């Protein structure tokens, strides 16, 4: 038996010698080209600021920018019932050669004003946009393993760049903040980050929450619920079971509960009339279980399916909801729970225990700070109670 320490030292030397050392100029060159991008962004920021009076004097030119719904992808988000933004994207092929335009509304989508973005065609794929306040908006794109964000605090007239890796201290989750992971990548969906915190609307910087929920975060709700509760879904590293954490005090304390469903589900949490509902969907996008909390997320009751200990899609499909693609649930103003996608609508009048099919297909539903947002092709609608919708188009 050879000497283990000598073997380890030998392997260390062998491995070290085998790792090539690329030219340092290559690394520096990458950093310089990123810097050029940022300088370019700032240059356009200056141009936008200088150009604003001219742009205001040219309403006809601005009106010509209305997007063609047949060729355009949209990301729409609202700060409140009146103030919202729409990021439109038109690409030559796939995700290449894309042109992006930002629109702002101050009247709930009745009228939209274009905002010039500091982005050139072909300058990456800006695929996330979050509205943090009437004048605060942030747009992000993946760059390598990071996300670059641009943000505006003046309604999209001028822009700053945020590019950070580590949290800039800790602070309570700001009401206008964006819940995210430390890496600052796609907050909704699977951020894949270890530290929970918020992206500050004023600086675009990531700030860690005062305390961390006792779970490994996989998904966060970027915007708080209607009463200001933040939520994080994840797993316990030891049990690999699903956990849901809810904070009602800006991340100062978290109520963390184990939910008896396999890890890796896609979660959505909404609140209505003091009741929280959470839905879990599998990788195929089907809702597999529905949970209800009447104590602010401290405890959860599984309401559907109410008999199956293992929420496999096959068992779920027997009672209807499992047939539906995952969409953000609606805790409606009349106490009902609605699950909907672009094809069907399911309504529960008994606190999420049973669902009946209802006519009409409201479209894809998401929760924004301005209420529920419904998307069907290039047509949108906003609702505060999930029952009464105000329809609009962008542009």
């Amino acid at each position, binding site marked *: *038996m050879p000497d283990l320490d000598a073997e380890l030292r030998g392997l260390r030397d062998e491995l*070290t010698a085998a790792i090539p*050392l690329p030219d*340092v100029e290559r690394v520096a060159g990458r*950093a310089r080209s990123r810097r050029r991008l940022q300088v370019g962004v700032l240059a356009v920021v200056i141009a936008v600021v200088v150009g604003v009076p001219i742009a205001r004097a040219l309403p006809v030119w601005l009106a010509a920018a209305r997007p063609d719904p047949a060729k355009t992808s949209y990301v729409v988000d609202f700060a409140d019932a009146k103030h919202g933004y729409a990021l439109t994207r038109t690409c030559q092929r796939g995700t290449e050669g894309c042109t992006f335009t930002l629109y702002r509304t101050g009247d709930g989508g009745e009228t939209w004003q274009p905002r010039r973005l500091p982005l050139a065609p072909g300058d990456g794929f800006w695929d996330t946009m979050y509205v943090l306040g009437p004048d605060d908006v942030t747009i992000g794109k993946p760059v390598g393993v*990071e996300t670059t964000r641009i943000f505006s605090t003046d309604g999209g007239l001028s822009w700053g760049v945020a590019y950070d890796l580590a949290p800039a201290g800790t602070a309570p989750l700001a009401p206008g903040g964006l819940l995210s992971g430390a890496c600052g990548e796609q907050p909704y969906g699977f951020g894949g980050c270890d530290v929970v915190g918020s992206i500050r609307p004023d600086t675009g910087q990531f700030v860690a929450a005062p305390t961390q929920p006792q779970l490994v975060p996989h998904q966060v709700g970027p915007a708080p619920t209607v009463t200001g509760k933040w939520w994080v879904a994840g797993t316990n590293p030891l049990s690999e079971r699903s956990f849901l954490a809810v904070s009602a005090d800006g991340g100062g304390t978290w109520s963390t509960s184990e939910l008896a469903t396999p890890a890796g589900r896609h979660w959505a949490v909404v609140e209505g009339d003091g009741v929280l509902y959470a839905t879990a969907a599998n*990788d195929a996008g089907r809702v597999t279980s529905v949970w209800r909390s009447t104590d602010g997320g401290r405890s959860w009751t599984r309401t559907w399916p109410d008999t199956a200990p293992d929420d496999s899609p096959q068992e779920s499909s027997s009672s209807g909801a499992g047939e539906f693609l995952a969409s953000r649930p609606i805790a409606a103003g009349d106490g009902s729970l609605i699950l909907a996608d672009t094809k069907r609508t399911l309504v529960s009048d008994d606190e999420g225990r049973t669902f009946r099919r209802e006519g009409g297909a409201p479209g894809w539903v998401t929760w924004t700070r301005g209420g529920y947002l419904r998307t069907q092709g290039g047509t949108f609608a906003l609702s505060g109670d999930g029952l009464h919708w105000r329809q609009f188009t962008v542009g």
Partner: protein
Amino acid sequence: MTETWFSELYRVSYRRLVLTAYAMTGDLGVAEEITQEAFTVAYGRRVRVLRLDNQEAWLRTVVVNLARRRHRRSAMADRLLRRQSTEPSPTVPPMGEHVDLHVAIRRLDEDLRAVVVLYYLADLPVDEVSAVLDVPSGTVKSRLARARNALAARLSAEVDHA
């Protein structure tokens, strides 16, 4: 022209940081990508990095953050694509005089592999291994002991079979 101090930092720390990333990812190719990304970030912030007392420690934090993010992304991709978890596939197959030891390390559980690579290969002291892995020093020491036993057992078995 790159600043001299940055070139020197790169020359001295690069390979050690690759091994740190290797401990976290189990893939040398990915480890090299992550380390280059970390140095790119450092160069972009070189005015700030230059003022740091321990520049390599700062870079190590960046490397660890990037490696964790990469790990989570690939875990999620595995889940979405319903891939089964397997041993990391090396982009550079183990070779050389100490191939048996390298293979034995790769076959260790992830927790044990990480402490072995960080302590013995990246040459980090116990307290820095503890900081990188975010576990107490005592845990690092116990894992090192378990890893050594496991490696010794596997290498003895190899010798017996030879």
